[in-house]
């Protein structure tokens, strides 16, 4: 039993939780929401255990480093953050239907890590540039931000579905989705949270770059894309707070922002630059 195995199993646990939430929503079985939450809890435990065991394994291999340094490890941490933030949201707002939109994202992330043939789960030693305490701060803050944006994306999708609530056949399905006002406000909270952590991620990356390469900003494609993402969400915040945008426009904006996050995370690996560590 090793960390990769635990994490593969955790993929299915998240998948099961996602199915339970979906079933609870689609078939109006609210009784399923409670077990679904417990399954998410189990998934978080598995995800954490996999993360911790991988850390231990790296010490056994004589490498000894926190597992936050390549695509596989970042995906594992990403799914963990999505699940944890979702649990906090559920605990605070008591709207388990959100789980039907959040948990598939955690499942996808971990499934990509575990199943995609181009994502290696081998524990590799750190390259010289990555040997820095800023690595930990940078990756953790970035991925908390990405996870919050992922959930904001889910909430945006829910909002757009809910908007079509016209009292016809799908009405019963849509009635289980939280009220628009709640989705709008909660989505906004997630964007704020994500924006704070994205900022912290970009800034810690800048400090790190300055200690490794002697410059805090170099317009490397990943740096630039993280800034583009930051611009998109900054625009969203100004449109909302100063120009009173609400509802559909903000939901769409938030989904566009998440597309920018995805380019920053995955798309940039196809462009040349200093951030090639995240690619494989």
């Amino acid at each position, binding site marked *: 039993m090793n960390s990769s195995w635990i994490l593969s199993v955790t993929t299915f646990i998240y998948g099961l939780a996602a199915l339970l939430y979906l079933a609870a929503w689609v078939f109006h079985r609210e009784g399923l929401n409670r077990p679904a939450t417990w399954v998410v809890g189990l998934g978080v435990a598995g995800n954490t255990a996999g993360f911790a065991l991988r850390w231990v394994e790296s010490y056994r291999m004589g490498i000894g480093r926190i597992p936050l340094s390549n695509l596989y490890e970042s995906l594992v941490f990403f799914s963990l953050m999505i699940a944890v933030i979702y649990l906090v949201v559920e605990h605070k707002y008591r709207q388990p239907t959100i789980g039907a939109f959040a948990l598939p994202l955690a499942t996808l992330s971990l499934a990509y890590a575990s199943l995609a043939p181009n994502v290696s789960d081998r524990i*590799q*030693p750190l*390259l*010289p*540039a990555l*040997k*820095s305490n800023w690595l930990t701060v940078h990756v953790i803050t970035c991925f908390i931000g990405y996870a919050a944006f992922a959930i904001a994306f889910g909430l945006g999708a829910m909002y757009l579905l809910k908007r079509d609530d016209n009292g016809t056949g799908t009405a019963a399905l849509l009635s289980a989705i939280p009220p628009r*006002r*709640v989705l709008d*406000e*909660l989505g906004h*909270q997630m964007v*704020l*949270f994500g*924006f*704070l952590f994205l*900022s*912290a991620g970009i*800034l810690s990356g*800048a*400090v*790190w770059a*300055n*200690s*490794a*390469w*002697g*410059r*805090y*900003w170099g*317009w490397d*494609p990943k740096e*630039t*894309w993280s*800034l*583009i993402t930051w*611009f*998109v969400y*900054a*625009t969203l915040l*100004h*449109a909302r707070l*100063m*120009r009173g945008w609400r509802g559909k426009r903000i939901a769409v904006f938030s989904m566009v922002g998440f597309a*920018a996050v995805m380019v920053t995370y995955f798309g*940039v690996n196809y*462009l*040349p630059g200093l951030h090639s560590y995240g690619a494989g």
Partner: protein
Amino acid sequence: MNNNAPRKNRLDALWGFFTSVRLTVVVLLLLAATSVVGTLIPQNASPQAYIQAYGEFAYRLLHVFNIFDMYYSWWFRSLIAILAVNITVCTIHRWPSIWRIVASGKLRTASLEKRRPLTEFSDRHDPRELREGYRACIRRKFPRARLLQEGKGFRVVAERGRWTRLGVPAVHLSIVVILAGALIGSFFGFDGFVNIPEGGSVSQIRLRNSDATLPLGFEVRCDDFDVSFYKSGSPKEFRSSLVILENGRKVLEKDIIVNDPLRYRGINFFQSSYGPMPPKKITLTFTSRDSGRTVRHQVAMGRSVALPEGGGRFTVGEYRRDYRFRGVQVGAAVLGVLERPGQAPAEIALPLRFPTFDRMRKGDWILSVAGLEEAYYTGLQVTRDPGVPVVYAGFVLLILGCWVAFFMSHQKIVVDVRPSAHSSRVKIFGTANRNRLGFENKVRKLGAELSRLSPETQQGESK
């Protein structure tokens, strides 16, 4: 006198232009959209590469707009400058109204009661009995609380977090501070590099993006360079042992690795690259074809050595890292000229990996390279950026400002308690400038807490 008015109007119009949030939104979106271009088109490549990729015409067109170095172009810089002015003007414009609220001594809650109460309930006690318990409970959550007597009822007016309104100006200020720091760096800093061979020293560096050199005012010596590898073959550590010399005297010594630079007199030396230096000396062996006797000789590059038994002389030429012999890659090799009595001088190659390579020549003596002292040079990134502390101050302010602006709010509540038949009617009004949903939950919790307060136990506790 008369032409002052239109000028003032124009200034007002300009001011109005820069106070608009629509401008902010447009500039942010333009920055986002144009930044994408620079990630798709490689920056600062050679003109030939661009012409090959895009063709002559597109190359010229893109070149006019500095697309190949777009983040440093006049138009991209102008966008950033407009954003900076926009932020500054907006902050100055809004400052008086923000400061009025933050610095005001008054609690202004009159408009609150016109709204719907966030929660209401009845209590079987008389307002007079509830008063002290309510005031204490509310004060624990809202330090600025005042009790107002109104006939037989009372109101508690309370607020908190007035200063959190400074969060937004702090974030905006932080952006301006970061940009100011970047400007300081670009005016008073430099970015250069230098290669120092092991054992060598330098006192000037070469600036990046220009051919200019810059004297350091002191000397840097590299005593040693080491590169270590993992078993997989990927690099583990690059380490240069550097010494700073002032007038020939050693003043500072430090081993630098990636992520741990040397800083001296505001100048930073970063481990950036490395490479092999041509060897200074090589060891040659001469093996006799007839007897198999072997003679070793150490010889400096460029020098000559006599073959044993009057067999001629060999002059060591250059060292090549990847030598091709008749089109075949043979790796590192030493080239040299062999002169034998009665024969024309011949250029021969001695690949390091194949010690018997020279047998092919069918000479009396077979030459090979038995060893060579390979030296490295260390490549250092050399920078000076006096703007960094300013930029970092901006970073801290940005994070703190975002935290305050996003997760703290200015909250006001009015708890209105009026007598009704043998009981009290309690209504709580309130507003927050942010996160109303969370605030309303909090007010409802406060309501629940107040409704559970029993004056009897309260008084019992206080006696």
